[in-house]
């Protein structure tokens, strides 16, 4: 661009560039692009709320309309992060309330959100439209009432797997009668009843409502009422899907479902009574997403459903042991997963959860066959989360050969350190085949018996790997070293119960500054190594999380319980009042 290229035109070009990565690249091209880009950046994604100070963000990007923040590390989902660790959103809300009065969207994941924060949000942004809280906690229905009451133009309110203190089901009534802008309402995680009449009136006056996900307390009998009020729905989540079997209820439900011509996604289905399942058969052929993961005690109905869902792209199921392919005498029984492989050629994502993982019934085998079948039959399969009891290298190799287009592969063999059930060897070769064949693999989660060899494979081939989750694997520091030195795109690494110590970590210290975060728990990293890292690497926060009482007298060579390292430009843990030098020590009792 040697000649003049007017700013407005360049800005117009930038308006077509939306990915975070691309926008960051644009801002680093030259001074004028940097300036232009910062003024027209509208969406910010902060993967770690402690990596950045909101004041800096506001100063650099003055005209942001949408913010997404993430707080606790992923392993918080397994209760590995103690209470009080952090992830408090309030200090952020205070700053952005001041800096971005025109903010429209807030999305939070794994953060502690208080009623105070929700109230502040509801009063600070006159044009607020979207609030999505995923895996958040710390608030009650009072906070929701404030959002309902004060956000005049609210379009989206989604609570995904949050822990909400239910004080009253009447918070829904706080939506004023004048509020007709709602497009998406997800209250699936609320545990107690909401006022049905308030819900009904809200749905009736929301002509743009496209997504409605109810909680389990909404009875099946009432579903048809709601569906008839909102036949334009695209995504619908039922409540409990069981009731006394009555033909009138069944008939009205069937009719209501068939009236929803735009329905593409279904979820909910707590406690399914199979007799009611055919009520939604009329929408099956249009479905692209089906989430049956809460449905327990499924029957062969699944096969019938799946055989009709020819356009299915995303399926989440909780399989009863009976539905896993089992070997009876010499043949494999036909099951739901085989039906899936035959019928759903557009399938892109599959998540299979076991209904009761801890059942140690010897007659029940959750095998690998179902996954192999699906990998053969579904050419577009990209993302897999699969729980099972047994796995073999040959199955993994077959899957890798069938589906080189996999981008996300998460396998959870229920027994830690389970070897190949046929050869009793480690599963190194199998996972190695996955990383070698699936060149676009971005996320990998492993289980079973694994030695340092699998890490060597990952380091050699996992060049696009962005997130790796490891448990009960490896033999020595060499394993960790392979990953840290070989995986060029690695941003998130989470490790538990592996024999990794100081050496690999310290030798690859500079790698840590290129990653978002590293979590290690129940490994062998010493306190001394943590302190050294904290002192030498000013771009990192090194957090030691330990339950033991006498943290101050912790010996240098003593291994720490949990370690969380992340890169940051915000310096010391911002907003915390427990900072001690560079290594932050957190006592669980505090």
């Amino acid at each position, binding site marked *: *661009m040697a000649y*003049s*290229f*007017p700013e407005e*035109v360049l800005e*117009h*070009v930038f308006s*077509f*560039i939306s*990915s975070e990565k*691309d926008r960051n*690249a*644009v*801002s*680093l*091209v*030259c*001074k004028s692009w*940097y300036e232009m880009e910062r003024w027209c950046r509208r969406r910010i994604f902060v993967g770690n709320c402690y990596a*950045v*100070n909101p004041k*800096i*963000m506001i100063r*650099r990007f003055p005209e942001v309309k949408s913010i997404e923040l993430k707080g606790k590390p992923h*392993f918080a*989902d*397994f*209760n590995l992060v103690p209470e009080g660790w952090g992830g408090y959103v309030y200090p952020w809300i205070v700053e952005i309330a001041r800096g971005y009065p025109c903010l429209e969207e807030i999305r939070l994941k794994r953060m502690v959100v208080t009623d105070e924060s929700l109230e502040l949000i509801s009063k600070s942004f006159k044009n607020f439209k979207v609030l999505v809280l995923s895996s958040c906690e710390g608030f009650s229905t009072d906070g929701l009432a404030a959002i309902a009451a004060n956000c005049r133009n609210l379009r989206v309110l989604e609570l995904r*797997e949050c822990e909400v203190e239910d004080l009253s089901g009447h918070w829904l009534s706080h939506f004023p009668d004048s509020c007709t802008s709602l497009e998406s309402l997800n209250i699936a995680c609320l545990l107690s009843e909401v006022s049905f009449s308030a819900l009904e009136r809200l749905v009736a006056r929301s002509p743009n409502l496209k997504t409605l996900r109810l909680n389990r307390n909404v009875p099946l009998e009432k579903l048809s009422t709601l569906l008839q009020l909102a036949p334009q729905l695209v995504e619908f989540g039922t409540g409990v899907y069981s009731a006394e079997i009555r033909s009138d209820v069944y008939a009205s439900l069937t009719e209501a479902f068939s009236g929803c011509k735009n329905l593409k996604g279904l979820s909910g289905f707590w406690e399914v009574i199979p007799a009611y399942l055919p009520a939604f058969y009329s929408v099956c052929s249009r479905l692209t997403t089906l*989430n049956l*993961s*809460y449905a327990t005690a499924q029957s062969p109905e699944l096969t019938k459903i799946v055989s009709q869902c020819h356009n299915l792209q995303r399926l989440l199921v909780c399989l009863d042991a009976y539905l896993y392919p089992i070997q009876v005498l010499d043949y494999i029984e036909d099951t739901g997963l085989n039906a899936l492989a035959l019928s759903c050629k557009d399938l892109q994502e599959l*998540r299979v*959860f076991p209904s009761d*993982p801890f059942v140690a019934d010897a007659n029940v085998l959750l095998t690998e066959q179902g996954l192999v079948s699906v990998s053969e039959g579904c050419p577009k399969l990209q993302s897999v989360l699969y*729980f099972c009891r047994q796995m073999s290298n040959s199955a993994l190799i077959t899957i890798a050969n069938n589906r080189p287009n996999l981008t996300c592969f*998460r396998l959870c063999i*229920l027994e*830690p350190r389970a070897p190949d059930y046929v050869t009793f060897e480690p599963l190194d070769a199998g996972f190695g085949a996955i990383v070698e064949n699936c060149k676009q693999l971005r996320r990998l*989660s*492993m289980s079973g018996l694994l030695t340092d060899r699998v890490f060597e494979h990952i380091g050699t081939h996992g060049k696009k790997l962005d997130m790796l989750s490891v*448990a*009960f694997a490896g*033999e*020595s*520091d060499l394993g960790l*070293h392979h990953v840290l030195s070989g995986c060029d795109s690695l941003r998130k690494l989470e490790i538990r*119960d592996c024999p990794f*110590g100081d050496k690999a970590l*310290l*030798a690859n210290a*500079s790698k840590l500054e290129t990653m978002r975060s590293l979590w290690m728990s*129940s*490994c*062998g990293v010493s306190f001394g190594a943590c302190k050294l890292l904290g002192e*030498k690497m*000013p*771009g990192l926060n090194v957090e030691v999380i330990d339950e033991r009482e006498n943290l101050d007298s912790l010996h240098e060579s003593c*291994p720490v319980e949990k370690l969380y390292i992340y890169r940051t*430009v915000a310096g010391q843990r911002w907003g915390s009042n427990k900072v001690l030098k560079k290594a932050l020590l957190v006592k669980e009792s505090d």
Partner: protein
Amino acid sequence: MSEPDVIKPEMMRSYIWLQTADGSIQQVEQEVAIFCPLICHEIHAGMGSSKTYPISLPARVNPVTLSLILDYCRFHQVPGRSNKERKSFDEKFIRMDTNRLCELTSAADSLQLKPLVDLTSRALARMIEGKTPEEIRETFHIPDDLTEEEKLEPLKNITDDPRIRLLNRLYARKRKELKEKEKLKNVEVEAEHVDDRSVDELLSFINGENGVKTVKNKKKNRRRKDQQKNAPESNGISSVGHDDRVKGHCLPNINELLKLQDSEDDRFGLEDEFDDCDIGDGIDPEIKEQIDREVEDFARRLNSDWPERVQELLSLGQERRPSLYTVNGNGCSARRSSSTGVEKHEK
């Protein structure tokens, strides 16, 4: 619509005249040209109907881009075409080299031809997506005028910059080295010189201080000396924050940089200051030259290979790794935990 002054009886169409910035004039079918809002406006204002009164097009439109734009207009102004046809034409149309595409975008914008602006802008956006900053610069032939500091994680808090800490440490080393060199040289030359050429003077020279007023120097040097005590410590923040001179000359604040209109050299501003130095400041010119070169070299190396510097920095305080492959894993006792792995029954 105005009638053309010169009617060509053999042609039923009307034509209008356009002139590009280079002076050349051409004739274009009116129905094609009016597709451009700017031209349409001019026609309604009475322009373009004859060769003597052509419509002057904006400077950003040259004959080549005009020709392309007219091709675009000629195709799209025909009403009967289907969306599929139009889309297909567009896809083929924008296949051109980057420079041409930029020119075309710019020209289309100046003629207010929004559909073409959108088409070309999207194409440019696609050329930018997925590239690193360096690749983008190469594609569009944009010079790199951001300094290393600015490139570093633009959200960085300047007072926490590891490069500043690094710089302080390297200064300390450099000072030490120079001091050693001075000692060696002075043994051969004059003993008294050791006193005059103190480390602080050298440092202030490096930092671009005007060496003439020795009183002033000494004052600043004293302050610098105090700060030197702090510099090697891990908290290098205070030495940067409080020393405005250092900040002003060597480590410009990012915000200040952004306000600069001219592009800056890809170096710390160390070298600008050397012009100020007088011959009569008491420093041997030969040594001065050597220092010039060394510091210049130092700055250049600092800028180009700082990741290696960080590694070096780390190696200053810890043992290196050769024993990595022979160490047994630090076995840890198995800990009981409530979950079995890394996957949750999240739904």
